[in-house]
Every structure is written in C-alpha cells, then in structure tokens.
C-alpha cells in the first residue's frame, strides 16, 4: 500500500499544474484550432467544415506582414545581443557589491505599463522631440527628416521593450563564470582579447542562446510597437491578428494566422537550436 502511495506521489504533485495547463493551454488551443477551420460570417455564425482554405488565403493575403515581422524580429534580436552583452558583462564583472542595485535600475522602467512606455518613445522620436530637433537645429539632419512611422522607430521600440529578456539570461551566464578561470587564461599567455574570445564568450553563449529564445518570439509577434511607433508600411503580423479578431470579427482568419505564426516560430527555433545547441555552441567556440 505504501509502495503504491509512493509511486503515485509524483503524479499527484503534478496534478494541479497539469490541470491548469489542460484548462488554460490545451483547451484554448483546441478551440482555436477548431475556429481556424470554420467557415461563415459574424451575422450568420461560423460552422466547422475543415475549411483549410483559411490557411492558404491567410498566407496569400498577409505573407508581407508575416515576413516583415520575422525580419524585424531578427534585426531587433541582433541589436539586443549587441546592446545587452556589454551591459550584462559590466554588471557581472564590475558591478561589485552593487550588482543587484544595477539590475534593479535596469528593470525599474519596466514597472510602468508596456503601452505607456511605448507611447513615451513616441514623444522621444517625434519630429520636434528631444532627439530629432537638436540634430535638425544644428543642421545634422534635414528639416524634413522624420523617424516616427518608419521601420527604425518600430525596431527601436522593440529593442527597448525587450532589453531585459536579453540582459538577464546573459548576465546569469556571465555571473556564473569563475573569475579564476579568466585569470587562468591570462596566466596561460592569453591576452585580454583572447581570453574573452576563448573563455568568456564560450561560457556566456548558453546565456545568449536563452536570451535569443526569450526575446525573438515575443518580438516577432509583438502588436504594440508598430501600432504606436509605426505606420501602415510597418504593420506586423500581431497587429493583423488583433485587427481580424477584434475589429473584423474574422475569427477563422485570425486563428489560422495565429497557428501559422506559431508554426513558423517553432520551426525557426528548432532550426536554431539544432544549429546552435548549447553543447555544440561551446565546442564550436572552443576551437
């Protein structure tokens, strides 16, 4: 009897979490899958008919926005790595006793609502805002120059909003590096650049890998930054899904697009993980 209990214990322990996932993940997924295969309109209602054309039609109509989202995602993720690595590096190696203070300062802006922060970027990037007007007044930029409504503005917003998603995992990886291992590299005739390339970077790569996973997905499916900072020429797939669902009540198309986005991101991430799995990353970098 005791043995049966002991064997059951782990299953009982995962029961609450399992139920939660079933209720709030699996059920909506199935509902959405069913929605994506329905046919009809808002007035007469939708009916399940295995209408696969929803998918082909959605791809045909919105492939521009889908590809644009992925491109924005890739660019923003690359910029994120470039910006986040030095920040994480500095905090991890030079933060001393104030490491947690610096991390807190980094996260402080993110206590404000996502949308509000994005709107404040609108103030920053506006034509007579604090960035453009001084540059224009000293003649560095032409009077007609504007950034709001363009792809760079959207990417700026994306990078800003997802910075902690990259800084934190990279920081964790760097912070775990034993300083004596870096000293050992210096002791074994590596100059500072070589010890960075041969020791610090390979040991930090798992963190970068995790950071990419954590930021690329939400960046690519974001629907706020382009709405607030962009224009019709920067529409991202997240906006399309939102509009189809909330404004046009075209649930089947919105659901089909959601599944397409999810599939594309999953394929992308699996390909990325295959190409740069943590173990292999370290081996490649060690060469």
């Amino acid at each position, binding site marked *: 009897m005791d043995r049966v209990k002991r064997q059951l214990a782990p299953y009982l322990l995962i029961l609450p979490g399992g139920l939660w996932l079933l209720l709030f993940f699996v059920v909506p997924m199935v509902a959405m899958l069913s929605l994506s295969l329905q046919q009809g309109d808002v007035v007469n209602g939708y009916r399940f008919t295995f209408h696969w054309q929803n998918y082909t039609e959605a791809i045909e109509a919105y492939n521009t926005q889908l590809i644009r989202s992925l491109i924005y995602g890739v660019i923003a993720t690359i910029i994120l790595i470039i910006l986040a690595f030095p920040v994480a590096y500095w905090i991890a190696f030079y933060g001393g006793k104030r490491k947690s203070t610096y991390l807190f300062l980094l996260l402080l802006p993110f206590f404000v609502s996502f949308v509000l922060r994005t709107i404040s970027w609108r103030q920053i990037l506006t034509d007579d805002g604090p960035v453009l007007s001084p540059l224009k007044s000293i003649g560095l930029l032409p009077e007609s120059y504007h950034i709001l409504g363009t792809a760079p503005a959207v990417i700026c917003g994306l990078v800003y909003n997802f910075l902690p998603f990259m800084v934190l995992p990279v920081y964790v990886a760097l912070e775990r590096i*034993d300083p*004596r*291992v870096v*000293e*050992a*590299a*210096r*002791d*074994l*005739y*590596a*100059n500072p650049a*070589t*010890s960075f390339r*041969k*020791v610090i970077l*390979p*040991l930090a790569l798992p963190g970068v890998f995790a950071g990419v996973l954590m930021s690329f997905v939400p960046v690519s499916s974001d629907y706020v930054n382009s709405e607030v900072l962009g224009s019709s020429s920067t529409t991202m797939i997240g906006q399309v899904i939102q509009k189809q669902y909330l404004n046009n009540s075209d649930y089947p198309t919105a659901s089909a697009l959601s599944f397409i986005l999810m599939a594309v991101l999953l394929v992308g991430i699996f390909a990325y993980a295959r190409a740069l799995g943590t173990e292999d990353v*370290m*081996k490649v*970098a*060690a060469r």
Partner: protein
Amino acid sequence: MTTPQHAAFSGQPPGVTANGTPAIRFAGVHKNYLSHGESVPAVKPMDLAIGQGEFFSLLGPSGCGKTTTMRMIAGFEEPSGGKVYLDGQDVTGVAPNKRDVNMVFQSYALFPHLNTYQNVAFGLERKKVGKADIKRRVGEMLDIVSLTGMEKRQPREMSGGQQQRVALARALVNHPRALLLDEPLGALDLKLRQQMQIELKRIQREVGITFVYVTHDQGEALTMSDRIAVMNAGVIEQLGSPREIYERPATRFVAGFIGTSNLVDGHVDRCENGHALLSYTAQDRVVVPVGSSVRPGDKIEVSVRPEKIDLHRGVPPVASTGGSVLSGVVNEVVYHGTSTNYTVATAAGADFTVFDQNASNAEDLADRGDRVFLTWAPQHSYMIGV
C-alpha cells in the same frame, strides 16, 4: 632530502644558485590595499630570493599576505612599490600573460568548456607552438601526471584528484620558469592529499622547475619544501629549511604556528658556558643556550618541542641534572596509539604538552593527578625573539 642541485646553496646567500641568478627575486616589494579610503598593508617591504629548481613554500595563516605575494609573482597584483625579478629580468608591471610563470589555482580553475587535452594544450596554443609539438608535449605531460587516456574527458566528469592533475599538467606543460601553487591540495581529502604531496615532490624532481607553494598547512610545507618562508601579518617571520624552522623557531609566532611548542619565560639567574639558567624553585630550572648579549636579570622566553621532553614518575634520574628539570602535575592524558600526549601544569607556571613514544612500557603510563618530572637536554631549549 638535499638533491645535488640544492647542495649548491650551502655557503651562499639563501636562494642563490651557482650561476648567481635567483629564479624569483623581490626587492623591497610591498603591497597596500585601499579599504574604506585607508591604505592597509597586505605585504610589508620584502626582500626575497627563490633559487632555481627550489621547492619553496610560503606558509602562514589566512590573511598573512602569502597569496598576495604569490599573485605579485604571477602578475595578478602589482606591487605598490619595489621590483619583481624573474630570472634576473625586471617584470614589475608586465601583464600576467607575458610572464613566464604558471599557476595552479586553489580550485583548479579548469576551463569547464574544454576537455583534458584542450585544457592542457591551452598555453601552448597561445604560444603558437606547432600542432604536432603540442600533441607530443601534452601526451608526455599527461603521462607524467598519470592521466593518459583521459584526453577527451570534460572537467566535470573527473574526480577532484584528477582535476588537480589536469591543473598541474596545464601549467607544467609550458615549462615555466616557476610554477606557482595556491593551496593546490586544499580541496582533497586527507588520503588523496598525502598521495599528491608525494607525487608533487616526485614531479618537481622530474621536471626540475622552481615550485612556489602557498599553504596554511604546516605539515604539508615541512614534508615537501626545500625552504619555507613563514609569513605573518605581511611579514616573513622566518625563512629557512624545514628543519631549521621546526628546530629553531625564530619568533614566538613561528614557534606557535609550526607544530606544538611549549613556551616558558623567566628571568636569567646566571650565565655560564654560553648557557643561561632560569630557576623557579630549588629544583625547577630551565637551561637554554644563549648568545653573549644575554645578562643575568634579563627576562627571556624559551621554547621546547613536546617530543624532546622526557616524563618521569617519581624522582628524575641523576644523569639529567645538567639539563632542564620542571616538576608538575598531569592534567590530561590522551592515548594516541604510537604515542601518549600529556598536559602537565608545571612549577614554572606554564602548561606543558609532552609527547611520549609508547616504545616499550605502554603500561607505565602516568595518570591524571600524578606528580611528574619533565627533563630535557640543554640543546633542546631554544630562546626565541619576542
């Protein structure tokens, strides 16, 4: 104990070899740290010469400056003043990667992302040694540290002792001018530590490289070293062979830190034939060899090792009348198998520790409360600087 190499030391200033150039030399080197805006000395001005091929230990309690001293040799700390020479060359201010010394770190600090081979080859690769040469030298070195066949293992797949050997091989493979070892055996269990002590000594003889060994373990330093520098509070209190350090501790600190010492002080009653006599009662006296500067009436401190003392029940043999005699009462008896340790409250006021070998008469042990006499020969008393 003394290899032919070290025979060259006799009659010369310590640490200087036949060709006159020490492997490592400190000239007035000192190091201050800034702490709360105040400059705190970690190492006070120090002159030091470590000979070629010598096994040299820096021994002291934590915070005594031994690790800082070593890190100044490696180049991880720059001295606040003074000069560091390697093989006669001034390397003060030279970056660690440009110094021809290698270090074995306390927790090994192996590269966790590299396997054994890659760890050991790291230094040679930086020095742009040819691939075939690297392969040969790494192979030879792994053979010396008995790790052949472990080339592909990652550090986390190896035991502490094996990681220790990788760290040693990784440093030695570069044939450095000196190998610096920072408490390298601290993380190993006792059995393995004793094994590695013997092995380190063997490897050092085999490769003939100068070893600078930082430790707080006096047993380790005494077993392995050619010379020991005992450090305390940023100062070398005594520098000498293990035997000198043990038999003739120069200061109260050294006497207490190395092994067990019995310390007793008193006023000199009279001096004769280079010996001072300290009387406590009619029969209790300590005889100690002294220099000519000691005069009757001076207060001096005398140290004597526990194993040099004979413990007698009843009346002391007449033969020992030329040496020291102290009477006392046994406070504590601890039986250790090969020996018995006594704590005796003596008439001189100090508690004495006595190690008595259980050679023949193990039944003839003194008991707690027994009245005993402690005797030892004059040459085993040692006056120490206070």
